[in-house]
């Protein structure tokens, strides 16, 4: 073995090829089957996609680096399930390009934060976290409330998402900007189209409390309120495993 190596280390290209082969095996064995084994991701026929407004909110969540302190992945541990809700399933992030499972909980997990607090609480918390949670170490995000949301290019966002595999329809792409506006303007004439395209469960309301304009605050709160609500697959799974569903 050492004799072989004694010869190998005299050849540059041979050595390079050896490193490439030896280093490729692990990743190949662990990653490739995740795309081919069907059981990797559960079926969830009720799974819906992010609306353009929620997607814009998700991009703000990414932009501000929220994932550095908040996970979106409840592990299969008793205390986590009791603290945050049913453990996360793979299917729940199947439209997440990229995933935001996170690696650190400086703040709590957000996988099922949707619906736990009112819009007004979320807005107040983002504007000044210590006004509602006195010992919080979260930064204030005051600029979200005063910045208008860019919605004119949301069609491009949906198109790119479709190219990587999210089944947005032509109709959704064509109306992306109008739907973002409509979802945050409940009394306007574009609100009906959002429900028509994304389903009755879609939240249509002024998330930041000011229906006269669509801000980045509207988008981020719309996103936070949908976390854990895109499918009921995890709730059903829990009902089966605990017997509560019978």
């Amino acid at each position, binding site marked *: 073995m050492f004799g072989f*190596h004694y010869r190998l280390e005299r050849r540059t290209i041979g050595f390079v090829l050896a490193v490439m082969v030896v280093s490729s095996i692990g990743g190949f064995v662990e990653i490739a089957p995740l795309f081919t084994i069907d059981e990797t991701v559960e079926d969830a026929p009720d799974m819906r996609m992010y609306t353009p407004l929620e997607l814009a909110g998700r991009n703000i969540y990414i932009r501000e680096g929220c994932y550095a302190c908040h996970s979106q992945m409840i592990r299969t541990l008793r*205390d986590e399930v009791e603290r945050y809700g049913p453990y996360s399933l793979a299917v729940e992030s*199947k439209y997440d390009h990229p995933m935001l499972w996170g690696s650190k909980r400086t703040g709590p997990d957000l996988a099922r934060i949707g619906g736990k607090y009112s819009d007004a609480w979320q807005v107040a918390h983002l504007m000044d976290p210590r006004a509602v949670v006195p010992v919080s170490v979260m930064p204030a995000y005051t600029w979200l409330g005063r910045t208008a949301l860019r919605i004119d290019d949301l069609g491009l966002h949906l198109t790119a998402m479709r190219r990587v595999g999210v089944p947005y329809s032509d109709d959704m792409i064509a109306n992306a900007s109008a739907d973002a506006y409509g979802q945050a303007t409940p009394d306007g004439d574009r609100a009906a189209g959002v429900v028509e395209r994304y389903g009755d469960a879609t939240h249509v309301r002024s998330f930041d409390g000011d229906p006269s304009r669509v801000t980045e605050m509207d988008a981020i709160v719309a996103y936070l309120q949908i976390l854990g609500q895109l499918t009921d697959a995890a709730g059903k799974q829990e009902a089966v495993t605990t017997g509560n569903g019978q």
Partner: protein
Amino acid sequence: MASLLTKNERQLALGISILLALVGLAMAGAGDDRAYAAHGILIMVFGVGTAFLTISGYHAPEPPEGRLAQYYDDPSKVGIVLAMGWAVFGMFIGDWVAWLLAYPEMTFDAAWSSFGRLRPVHTTGVIFGFGGNALIATSFHVMQRTSRARMPDQLSPWFVLLGYNLFCILAVSGYFMGLTQSKEYAEPEWYADIWLVIVWVTYLVLYLRTLARRQEPHIYVANWYYLAFILVVAVLHIVNNLAMPISLTQAKSYSAFAGVQDAMTQWWYGHNAVAFFLTAGFLGMLYYYLPKRAGRPIYSYRMSILGFWGITFFYMWAGSHHLHYTALPQWVQTLGMTFSVMLLVPSWLAAANALLTLNGAWHKVRDDATLRFMMVAALFYGLSTFEGSFMAIRPVNSLSHYTDWTVGHVHAGALGWVALITFGSIYAVVPWLWKRQGMYSAKLVEAHFWLALVGTLIYVFAMWNSGIIQGLMWRTYNESGTLAYSFIDSLIAMHPYYVARAIGGLFFLIGAVIGSYNIWMTVRATREDSREPIADRPVPAVARDRALQSGE
């Protein structure tokens, strides 16, 4: 600088600079979002700057032939200065965000200065800015010495070094403006990623061309590690950054993968960025500078081989231990845990090989802070690889994951191992490169050593405490069978440790500032050491031909 390039190289450098400036101009002109356009302007300014640098020496006479009888070290010198600049910048931001966790109001009411944007500035600044520049600078130095050959040309090392720094600047300025892919340690957007691929391929080709010119029959161990670093980082970078931009005139892109596949790809990348950027590359440093400084040969050739191939093979399986108990299929988690535990063997082989090399030179470790930097780095390498294998065991991970224990583990490796081996190597190489008798002040090296060591220990102990307390509080039940502590309770318990951690980080930062001053004063000193070791030269061309005829 440009006057030392040949005329052909000057023309090429000017061409590349102008091309870069034009690309920047196009991005700035066509850019459909402000951050993207700002990056266009930045690229254009960078291209104009390198064009001016080239023009300043454009009409100088051809460089003297005598240069070919010496190693080409100018890029290494500039790389070391850049590395120290990034170190101070990245560690300053790091300490700032550490204070923010204790006192969240210590910032401005502006988006760029919020924790979420500063945090990747810190990680990129220290990993890629400080670590990357140090790796590039030392790899140029080591590959020439161990091959006893000069670099094949003088332009590509500059392209690699300056191009790499352009990538780092794009990355960091992007975070301030809110540009990020959110993939940890792979945050820069698609155009910066493409630029890095171009730079990185040039780096690989330069390395291979230099090795091809070597006058030593064998490729030395340090080069195995540097090569693995360059090769594997290229693969990791390309796969993990596959993404669909929304438009060629906007920065935003969507990852090609989603959900569980994206998570696995990301942590395959993330863990092997630790393995091949923060471990392999720095083991390359260790395997050259430690024996040189100690004046002892590497303890064991066989341990070197086993350590190298073990690390290259096992590490690539270990990434899934970042995803224990998640929605990742359990078979992948089990593989990740198993290989992470096995990884301890090659890791400790490498650490033991380094420490045993010091046998017979321990009196030097006592007297010489530079060698002591390297010795303590090897110790921390052994410590943090043990800790890493331990934390990869599923039940341990159930406690440690998502807590500050992970942060403490990373910093035991990043401060104790990566930064200490880098400082040690830089203190060794600076006097050699600038031909000085020694560093400007040995006492300041000594002061830096103790500041760095004490800072690391404070940091790591604070995070061990806070992480384990946090993990235990989250899972503690009271007698009635409900969770005993709210999340906020655990946050309040963290406060003293967050203050301690920020103080430890401050020690480390002050050490880096002192080190930068010491290096700067060494460079500025006018007194050259005339006793240049005669062996520190490439094998001349005539001898090389003879050597080739003799069959090597």
